[in-house]
């Protein structure tokens, strides 16, 4: 009863059509960024290493290497500032959380390529 009402309130903020991507995918995250009074779209590219939470609290973590330094960003799945998530390459992943990638550097960061239908080439 109680959760039904809360779900009802949350449901107005949930996105209807979510783009499909999987753990291990390399994705382009299009996010809306506000600078002063200008709004522009920024693309963050990296590997999806985790997805957690339910409903409005659901987030996913994208990791990439910038200047030899690992950078991770967490995105709320249903945020209106996350405009689109486009999977561009599928990676072979055997677990749901790829935290082991944090200890890796160089070539070892890259996951083996996996053929899949949901990715879109650039």
């Amino acid at each position, binding site marked *: 009863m*109680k*959760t039904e*009402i*809360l779900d*009802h*309130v*949350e449901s*107005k*903020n949930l996105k209807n059509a979510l783009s499909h991507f999987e753990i291990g995918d390399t994705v382009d995250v299009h996010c*809306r960024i*506000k600078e002063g009074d200008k709004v522009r779209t920024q693309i963050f590219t990296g590997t999806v290493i985790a997805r957690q939470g339910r409903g*409005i*609290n659901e987030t996913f973590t994208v990791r990439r290497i910038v200047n030899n330094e690992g950078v991770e960003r967490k995105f*709320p799945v*249903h*945020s*209106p*500032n996350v405009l689109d998530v486009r999977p561009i390459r599928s990676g072979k992943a055997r677990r749901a959380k790829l935290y082991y990638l944090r200890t890796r550097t160089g070539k070892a960061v890259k996951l083996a390529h996996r053929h899949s239908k949901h990715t879109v080439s650039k």
Partner: protein
Amino acid sequence: MAMLLGKKVGMTRVYDESGELIPVTVIEAGPCTITQVKTTETDGYDAIQVGFEDVKPSRRKRPQVGHAKKAGTAPKKFVREYRFSDKPEKEYQPGDSLTVAVFADTKYVDVTGTSKGKGTAGVMKRHGFGGFSASHGTERRHRAPGSQSGYGTNRGWSGGIKKGKRMGGHMGTDRVTTKNHSLVSIDEEKNLLVVKGAVPGPAGGYCIVRTAKRPQ
């Protein structure tokens, strides 16, 4: 000014127009029934008595059942009064129903509830005292209140304990009002108020929602 009685459902998060997540509390408010209208002529002041949530007549005392019957409703679980500072602009009749629509053009609300009970609590939790050092030789006095008074307290000579001295004791289940919650949205179909921030009391606890007295 308007008032409604309600029940706290719980907390969640919603996005605002700029895409920011804001913490909100959902309150199931109304529909409330006016059980009595008080006027200056008959009662000395102007007020309406409002009831929320029906209860079985066998669970209330007979005068209470009779009182509700006068207004043509079932006895109510939660009954509170809303007092007008001067003559109300609108005519109210016993038996009238109040819904969340009364807050249609309200931006900020005050919410009164009964806070969660904490039982017997020490001074650190109850009054925010600092306690003592964890180390540096402190032994079995880490959360103690310290000294309570001295010879020269302003209670005069002989060092009595000052009235109102903060000590440990029962904490919680107090009437607490949190002010100026911005009203995020109203759901007239499901009788829901969504207010920003936390509201006193447990989920399922009764609360009083009023138009903010001093909106910022």
